[in-house]
Structures are given as C-alpha cells and as structure tokens.
C-alpha cells in the first residue's frame, strides 16, 4: 500500500517520523529497526557550537510520563555535518534537522549551511523549555517568531521548513497562523509541556534544572486538542506529536488533523515503536476500507 504523505514539497514514504531529541542521530536505533522504513528521521537539536547541556539529574519519571531537562546537549553543526549526517545518508531516508540558535543570525547560519548540504527538512526549534537563551523566547512571542521565520525562509531554498511550536502558549491557533503566514511549510506540535517535580524527602527539585519538559502518554490529550485547534487555523500540514505510544495514538493525531506524526518517548520504552506504528496505520487503513493516510487526516466526525 502507498502510505506516502507530503509535507510541503517533501514526500515521505509514510507518515511516521521520529521526534527530535528522542532518537539521537539515528545511529542509536539502527540496530533495532531498519531506518529505511521510517517516513523521516528528525535528529537531536543542533546548534552552531557544541552544547554541553544541563547538569544531572536531567530526567525523572512522572505518572504516565517523564520530565526532561537535557539542555540541548549536542555535537554542534560542524561535527554533525562531518560525522552524523554522512551516517544517515547511507540510508534511503529523509533527514530533518532540528535547529536551535541564540539569535536570528544563528538560526540563519544553521539553516543556510544545512540547506546547502541538502538535508530534506529543517525544523526550527523555538520551543525548548530547558535552555535560558534562544529557542522558547521566539516560540512564545508572536512578533519575534514572525521575524525569525521570515528571515530563515529567505535562506532555505531546497529543504522543507518546519516550525516546532510550543504548547506553553495561550493560543496555539495564533502561533500556527504566524508560522504559516511567515513562510513555514509545515508546523510540528507539540513540544514538551513545562513541568516540575519535587522529592519530598530531600525537599529538592527532582531535576537539577528545577523545571523540565513533560512528555509521554500524560500529555497526549493536550497534544490532540492542540493539533485539532491548529488544524482549523492553518492550511499547511501539521506534524502531530505528544505521547504517541502505538498506532491507535498516531491515528488519533491524524484524525485530529495531523498529516504526519512523530514518535518520541515511546522509542525509549520500545525501540521498535515506530515500525509497529507504521504497520498499525496500514492495518487500520485496510480495515476501514480506505486507500491512503490522507483519508485519516481530517476524517474527524466533528464539526
């Protein structure tokens, strides 16, 4: 069955990709699954210079989810291009690179370099809750976001440009619209929701960073609602994510209006989650007598 979907001008062989930050640079999971089978790999956020990340503890478990404050530890652009990207290029797979800058200029430099090397997609990370500078200051300010996307748009010629939105805003519709109007080819949502946990014995926060981003099944209903709201506000494709553990969850996101989905935390508990979700979506399409994933998207029986 043809499971392909289009994100802007980028054609994916199926609607399932990995969520940035949960799949390393692809290498980490290549022994568990055939990477060639994925719709796309979205790699860990890349900055111009390597970042060492936050001190530990960086993660803690919460009911049906986990908090993380990794702080965008990454190898930096240079090493990514030299070591990580060539590895992924050995596969027949679309590579989407999540990028993070401290200012507009850094986003432009990153996106231009990556576009020149021919990556398939660039995902603007404007929603990481765990770093002080950059990122979320664009994702929670409509004017700043519009300016950033418009500028980056000019330097991205070939790659599809995706804006990853923060759920930590009052209106996801407004931010989705800003992304669309400023030239983004697609939006991805949601990033993690800001949260906090305290150890009552030591009376200290469970994360060294104090607050972190909540992911996992706990956030799924919020993510579904936001995808549904965004889908009513914009015409560009939506990549839905937030607590997808299995095919049923992925289908729920597509029914809410997502063209494609990203699997994040589920990779940690089941390294084969992405493949099982692709198989499950195909089975669902057959069972319902449909012909394509597009028939699921916006197939919601709600007005």
């Amino acid at each position, binding site marked *: 069955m043809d499971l392909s979907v289009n994100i802007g001008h980028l054609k994916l062989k199926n609607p399932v990709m990995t969520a940035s930050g949960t799949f390393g640079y692809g290498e980490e999971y290549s022994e568990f699954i055939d990477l060639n089978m994925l719709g796309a790999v979205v790699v860990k956020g890349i900055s111009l210079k390597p970042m060492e990340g936050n001190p530990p503890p960086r993660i803690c478990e919460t009911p049906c989810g986990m908090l993380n404050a990794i702080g965008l530890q990454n190898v930096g652009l240079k090493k990514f291009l030299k070591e990580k990207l060539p590895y992924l290029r050995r596969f027949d797979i679309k590579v989407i690179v999540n990028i993070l800058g401290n200012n507009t200029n850094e986003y432009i430099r990153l996106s231009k370099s990556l576009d020149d090397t021919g990556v398939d997609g660039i995902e603007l990370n404007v929603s990481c809750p765990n770093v002080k500078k950059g990122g979320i200051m664009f994702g929670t300010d409509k004017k700043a976001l519009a300016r950033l996307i418009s500028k980056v748009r000019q330097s991205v010629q070939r790659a599809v440009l995706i804006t990853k939105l923060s759920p930590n805003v009052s209106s996801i519709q407004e931010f989705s619209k800003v992304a669309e109007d400023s030239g983004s080819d697609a939006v991805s949502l949601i990033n993690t929701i800001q949260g906090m946990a305290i150890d009552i014995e030591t009376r200290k926060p469970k994360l060294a960073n104090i607050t972190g981003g909540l992911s996992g099944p706990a956030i799924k209903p919020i993510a579904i609602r936001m995808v549904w709201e965004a889908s009513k506000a914009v015409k560009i494709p939506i990549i839905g994510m937030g607590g997808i553990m299995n095919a049923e969850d992925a289908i729920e996101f597509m029914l809410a209006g997502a063209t494609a989905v990203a699997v994040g*935390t589920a990779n940690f508990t089941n390294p084969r989650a992405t493949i099982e979700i692709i198989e499950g979506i195909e089975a669902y399409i057959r069972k319902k007598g449909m012909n394509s994933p597009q028939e699921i998207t916006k197939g919601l029986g709600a007005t």
Partner: protein
Amino acid sequence: MSRYFKAKIISNLPLNSKNNLFTIKPLEPVIDPEPGQFYMIEPVNSYDPLLKRPFSFFRRTPEGIQFLYTIKGRGTSLMSKLEKGQVISLIGPLGNGYPKPEDGYIPLLVAGGIGIASLSPLAEALTKKTYVFYGARSKDELLILDELKELTDKLFICTDDGSMGEKGMVVDILNDFLTFHFSLLTSYVIYACGPQPMLEALSKIALEKKIKGYVSVEENMACGVGACQGCVVKVGSQKKKHSKLRTPNFELVFKRVCKEGPVFPIEEIVW
C-alpha cells in the same frame, strides 16, 4: 539476535525482606552479557510507571539470565509482584562492562549493598587471585555469601551495625587493607559498585594512593541506548588543545552512563 527481546519469568524469589533474585528465560536467541553490563527491564506492562529500569546482569545460567535487585521505589515494588510465567520485554546487554585486569595486577572488588550484583559475575569470570570487599547495612542484607566464598581468594565482610564481619564502612576496611599492604599498592586494580557516597570516598583513596580502578555508576535512565542523553555524569578530561599553562587544564564534560558507562575509570568521574 536483537538486544530488544521478550522473556518469560522463571522465578522472582525473595532472598530477604528487601532483595529479590529474578530469573528470566529469553524467548529468542540473545547476546551473551559481559560482567558489568546491564539490561533495561520493564517493571510492569503499562504506562505507569512508563520507563524501563536499568539492572546489572548478575548471572547467566543454562536456562536464562538472573538479576539481583533491591525493592526501593515504586518500580521495583511493582517488579517484585511479577510472577512466574509472565512475559516482559527487555533491552540488553547494554553499556560497557569491566575491563579485564592487565597482567600482573591483583583485582580488588569493592561492593556496597546491591552493588554485589554487578561485581559477582566479574568475580566469577576472573581467573586470577581476587579479593572481595563487601559491605551492607546489616547481616540479613548480605547476599550470596556462600557463592562469594567459593569465588574469591579472600572475602572481607563488613556491616554498618556490626551484625556480621567487621563493623564499619567497606571503604574503611579497604583502606586498612591497603595501608597494611602498602608495598604492593601499584599492583592492585580496584573494581567497585555501590552507593554514590561509597564510590566517591573510594575514588579519593584510589587517587591518593595512585591505584588504578573502575567504578560502575548509576543515574536515572530513560532509553538505555544513548539516545536521550538523560543519564549523564560529569567527567573531567584533559583538554587536547595545546595549553600554555603548566598545570593540566581540565575541561568538564558529561558522559552517558548507558553508553560510555556504566563502568568508568575511577579518576574520570567528577563527584
């Protein structure tokens, strides 16, 4: 052979009020573990708790793989209720095990509490003369003593309350031993696993006395395979860049316990 596999529970046997011996039988061919490596185990097949937990592999038996664990939090408490015949999923073996001692070195294995689970397979694998230092809170928390006596040339036991062996901390017992055998210091290599304060105290002694060694450390883990970057520890590494300073210039970085660890050279961790 995949490192992600399903296994049937053979037994989940309480050894005392806090510790269980967990035996599983993989339902497919699996990779043989090395001493010091670990597995991610799901304590319950549900979303709450969500994550698998890391456990050192304890023993490979003809019928399966064994783990020793302490019932400590919600995950291990749920795990203790798993019953024979249930099927669970695991990822492993993961991480780097203990490097083999070089020729001419005498291994000193230092275990605190459940840290014995990680060091016992090493004691079993070593063909050389081996000394084991094993401390726990009290007599009933000391595990597998009979096996250890057989595996080692000398077993030093201590408890916090003095209910068995010497009264005191295992690091102090080791320190006394080293002080007494000072002429041989450079021929020892330490292998240690236990609570963080113990490893920290041990590292100080090893650095002072210039003894080589390795420690196996713990951190909260989500993926176990190097993807999430959640389980890092701070390590000091010498800067490669040419420095005009005479003193060694150290730069602090983070390393993943699951991928670069869980076993690290003793001098590398910044406590």
